[in-house]
């Protein structure tokens, strides 16, 4: 059984005041996310990521298609006991403290007062909320509210967690802590579905990703499925003469050269000839090796390719 499953999920909105016209927010999205996976849901602004998450939470209703979580229809109250959700830029009751908010949400999840007391303290420690947990939330920064948001998504020890832009508003330390938290969730067998603009987070955390562009799922798969291929080498050398560099360029052994500080060069080498052959030739002319690294397609390259190749969003057929 998939943890998350959507079949032809479609959402149209009506926009305009005088001239009402349909707008396709999400178009025929079919997704399967297995249990225990960390799935990254990527896409540019306005691609439909938040719309998809809202459909999965049944905050909005689909125009067509269906969504299931843990084999039950999205919005099913029993399923909601087993999931957690962090909305984008979450807002909570600012007259409550972090402890009170979690206590409220824990109570709504059916937890006893004793269970809530036992869980909330540990959860706030886990997301890095310290002594300020007893202050009203109106005194919290955006990053601190994000941490409370993540804590409330985990208050019921969920099997599936939906995180909409979880790194938003966090400082570098906070981002690292949340990355580690997501990995701990994965290790506990929790399915994590998160939307993000930060591709490095997706590369570091996800077993699979989906890229949404203009309301359509442009591609999805494991990072290796998405052709993160080796496309050359980056060689950094020092003591390289202008003549030696010109010769290497003329033979096609170097595709680009970038001067660095301390008389060093960063050279981009093609896949052939092998980098050790090029390196030995350069060293014979007085160059010294500083570093050699493979150049692979990044998720960003795939993302840019997908976003660039997808046509702009179409207006919906009137319904």
């Amino acid at each position, binding site marked *: 059984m998939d943890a998350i499953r959507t079949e032809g999920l479609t959402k149209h*909105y009506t926009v305009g005041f005088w001239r009402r016209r349909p707008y396709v927010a999400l178009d025929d999205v079919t997704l399967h996310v297995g249990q225990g996976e960390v799935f990254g849901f990527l896409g540019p602004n306005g691609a439909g990521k938040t719309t998809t998450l809202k459909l999965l939470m049944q905050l909005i209703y689909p125009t067509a298609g269906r969504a299931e979580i843990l084999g039950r229809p999205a919005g099913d109250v029993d399923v909601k006991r087993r999931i957690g959700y962090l909305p984008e830029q979450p807002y909570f009751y600012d007259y409550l403290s972090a402890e009170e908010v979690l206590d409220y949400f824990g109570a709504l999840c059916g937890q006893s007062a004793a269970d809530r007391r036992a869980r909330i303290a540990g959860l706030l420690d886990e997301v890095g909320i310290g002594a300020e947990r007893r202050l009203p939330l109106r005194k919290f920064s955006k990053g601190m509210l994000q941490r409370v948001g993540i804590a409330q998504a985990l208050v019921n020890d969920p099997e599936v967690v939906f995180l909409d832009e979880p790194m938003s508003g966090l400082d570098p330390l906070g981002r690292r802590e949340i990355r580690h938290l997501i990995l701990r969730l994965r290790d506990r067998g929790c399915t994590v579905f998160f939307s993000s603009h930060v591709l490095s987070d997706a590369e570091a955390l996800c077993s699979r990703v989906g890229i949404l562009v203009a309301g359509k799922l442009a591609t999805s798969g494991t990072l290796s499925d998405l052709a993160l291929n080796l496309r050359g080498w980056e060689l950094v050398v020092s003591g390289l003469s202008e003549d030696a560099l010109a010769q290497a360029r003329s033979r096609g052994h170097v595709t680009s050269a970038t001067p660095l500080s301390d008389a060093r060069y960063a050279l981009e080498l093609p896949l052939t000839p092998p980098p050790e052959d090029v390196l030995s030739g350069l060293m014979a002319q007085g160059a010294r090796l500083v570093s050699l690294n493979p150049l692979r397609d990044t998720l960003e390259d795939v993302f840019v390719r997908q976003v660039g190749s997808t046509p702009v969003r179409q207006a919906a057929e009137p319904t």
Partner: protein
Amino acid sequence: MRAVGHIAVNVFKESVRDKVLYNLVVFAVLLIAMSYLIGELTAGQDLKIIKDLGLAAISIFGLAIAVFIGIGLVWKEVEKRSIYTLLSKPIGRAEFVLGKYCGLVLTLLINVGVMTISFYAVVAYIDWVSTPLVRASWPAPAADPAMLKAIGLIMIELMIVTAIALFFSTFSSPFLSAVFTIGLWVVGQFGQDLREFGAVVNSSTAATMARGLSYVLPDFAAFDVKAQVVHGQAVPISYVALTSAYGVAYLALLLAGAVVVFSRRDFK
């Protein structure tokens, strides 16, 4: 339905931490004290004026709480997006609406309760300082328990007003909700006039329409027995029970409407 209780308690907690609510209670208590002072200046009529002003103050301050908190009950959750987190928890949309309603009714109940206690304290004090001769001139005892009938009907009326405000709050802005709620409350004071409209117009169509409207709109005038209890006239318990039953049926319909509207909404 346990979620309804948790949501209601949270609404009450918000009201308690909202300084406006404290101000309303303070103003109500002040008004009752003022009515006592006015009574001191009006020979012979002091108790009647105090009762009139006290009951009116309970009604008006309760109305202000019902309207101005009621219109923001659902709207604020949607506008500030806290609804996203809340509805992702294992609760139904109907439970959310009912929880919000019960929370405000609880707030009203406690406010009306505090105002009632203050009011009875004032009239009991007048009773204590008055001579037997003055007491004999009163149409009803100072701390007349029959006033609880009037306060009970005020409470039912406030519960209907809250349900109206909540209903509009599920799909409308606070400004429009306030206009609609107050408008309905004002029109609801003239239910009897609408029913008897035929006596003052020649058009039978207008008369029929007015009569039909009087059955659809809430008949708030029926809940006003303040004058009767102040003048010591009997208000039968059967009247109180029947009017209360009408009120509960009316607010149940409003809540059902609010649940239907709210359950169909997209939270974009």
